Every structure is written in C-alpha cells, then in structure tokens.
C-alpha cells in the first residue's frame, strides 16, 4: 500500500511538473490560503522564479521567517512589478497557498506593497 501511495504521489508530481513546463508547484496546497504581514529581509526578483523572505512578529512577540514563492521576474514585470516593488526593509502583507510540508512557505496570490498598493496573482492572464 505504501509503495502504491508513493508511486501515485510521484506520478502526480511528475504530471504536475509536466503541465507547468518547468518547476513543479505541487508542493503547495491550492485548497488553502494563509496570510501574514512582516518585514522583507531578502527579495530574489529573478527568473526562473522570484521569492521573498520576510520576518513576521506574532502576537506574542515571537519572530519567524517566511519564504514566499512567486512567479518569474519576466512575468511579474509584464504584470506591473518593478525591481523597486519589494525591497529589504519594506513592510508588506502577503496571502498565498501554504506549502504542504513546510509551515512557513507559501505560493503568493496577493501582496500589499509597502506603498499600500495591492497586486493579485489572478491579474496574470494564465
């Protein structure tokens, strides 16, 4: 049974990887959403994908580091981002699909930039 499940999981991973053409996003739970606010510590505004590291302070004053996966620089730029959109030190709010196994990682669906403007993943055509 374990082998069957492992095989099915690998098959799903491979099929998903194929449908996206490059990197798999099957590690994210597209049925769930999570939202946090914090301070940017690193922004990789890059191809093949971008990611944002942010420090989040919870109600108890505890700091945790989050990693936010976003699509490629070339696509983000076509849909309104600039290299200045997210910088280290910025206070931002993000919403996304959580990673299935890594509790502080997500796939970005919405961001409120430091300048107060909102951007939605759904603004991308496909």
């Amino acid at each position, binding site marked *: 049974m374990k082998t069957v499940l*492992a*095989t099915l999981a*690998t*098959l799903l991973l*491979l*099929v998903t*990887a*194929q*449908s*996206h*053409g*490059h*990197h*798999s996003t099957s590690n994210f739970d597209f049925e769930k959403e999570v939202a946090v606010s914090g301070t940017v510590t*690193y922004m*990789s*505004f*890059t*191809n*093949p*994908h971008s*990611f944002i*590291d942010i420090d989040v302070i919870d109600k108890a004053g505890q700091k945790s580091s989050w*990693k936010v*996966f976003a699509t*490629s*620089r*070339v*696509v983000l*730029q*076509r*849909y309104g981002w600039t290299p200045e959109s997210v910088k280290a030190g910025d206070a931002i709010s993000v919403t996304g699909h959580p990673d299935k196994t890594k509790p502080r*990682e997500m796939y970005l669906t919405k961001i409120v930039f430091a300048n107060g403007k909102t951007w939605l993943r759904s603004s*991308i*055509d*496909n």
Partner: protein
Amino acid sequence: MSGHGRTRNGARRNACTRLLGVLALCQFTCSLAAPPDLTGVWMPETKRTQPFPRNPPYTDAVRASIAESRQTYDEHLDDLGRSCLPYGMPQQVLGTAAYPLEIIQRRDRITMVHELHMAIRRVFLDGRSIPADARPTRLGYSVGRWEGNTLVVETAALAPQQLGTQRRSPAMRIVERYTLLEGPQEPTGKSLRLTIRIEDPETYTQPITLDKYYTWGSPRFEMGEYFCTEDLWNQLATGNKSRIPWR
C-alpha cells in the same frame, strides 16, 4: 502628327492598359494565394487548450521503464527544471503559462521565439526536407509549408530523453498545424489554433493529438528576457545565502 503616329501611340496605350490589367490580376490572384502573416506576439490561452493526456498510451517497455525510474527518482538529476535545462519538444510548445511566443515570418523561413527558456525554433519553408543526418537536438529540425491558411510544421531529429514521464525516442516525429482564426468571436480579434500530433512508436502505442490556442498579444504584450539562472547569480552578487526553494 501623322495618322501612322496616332496608330502607333494607340497601340502603345492598349499594350500598357493590357499590361496594367495583367499586373492587377496577378496582384489580385497573388494576394489570394498569399498565406496569412503570423508575425507578432502570441499569448498561450488556457481556456480552449487541451492538456497533455494524464495517461499517455505508453508502450509496455516505456511503462516499465517509468515504473523503474520512480524507484530511483532523483530530483536533482531527473527534474530538469532544477538545472534550468529545457525539456525541448514537444513540451516547449505544450505549456500554457503566461510566456508569449513571437513569430517572425519570412517567405522562406519562420522563426519562433519562445520567451520561456528563450527557445528559438527555425522552420525552413524553402522546400528542403529534414536532412537524414541532421544532428539530433532537444528542439529538433523543422521544415514547413503552407496548406491554404494553415502553416504545417514537421519536426524530427530530436535528441532522445528518458527522464520520468518526459520520454522521447529518436523515432519521434511531430506535426504542428497553425491556423489563423479571425473574427469577433476571438478574445482579441484573432487567435492561432495549433493542432499538434506527436508520433513516437518507440514511446507511444498511438499518436497523441491535441489542440492548443494562442491569442493575439500585440501590442499589449512585449517579449521579455528569461535567463533561468538569475536566482543563483543574484545570491552570488548579494552574498545572500537564503535557500532557493526550487533548487
């Protein structure tokens, strides 16, 4: 002017009129025969595009090989995305993510520039055949012809691939048919329907055929730059050691 001169001038005028008539007719018939100009930027469309089958008709040998590869799956070796190595054909044209395709059309050659991986395909329309000794590549060797309004592209000389479900044997042949669709029913006035037929008797027991659509993207979209290792370089440049999630 003599009567003889008038006759000669009249004959010249008649000859000129006839020549102009012939030229106009030629222009008319030539324009009827001219293929559509596909030059411009096209964005993949998800809505009408048929996905690659979830259960492709693999041959028994390939099915067994895939099962075996699952036991030895190494994400660093078997997931080409991690190394930024493009899958090649047919995957290069099957994706529907928001990466446009630019077509540059000339009478004797069509160049297809895919933003994703900045992959370039050259389709020769000068009547040549695919050379028997063409060096196998990931994108293959492509020749094309016009059948009415449809551009037909045949691709072979593909380098084999044996990774996970990404299978390709040297016997693979791909036929793509690009047809221009125009009218108010198309999302941006005109679309491109690609019917792709993938035949590889060493991989599939029967050909796989599916439709993919592109919508006309000019001038809303411009081609961008996609270098797949910027994330690695950015870390070298900034000295940041943050883990890259997809590497």
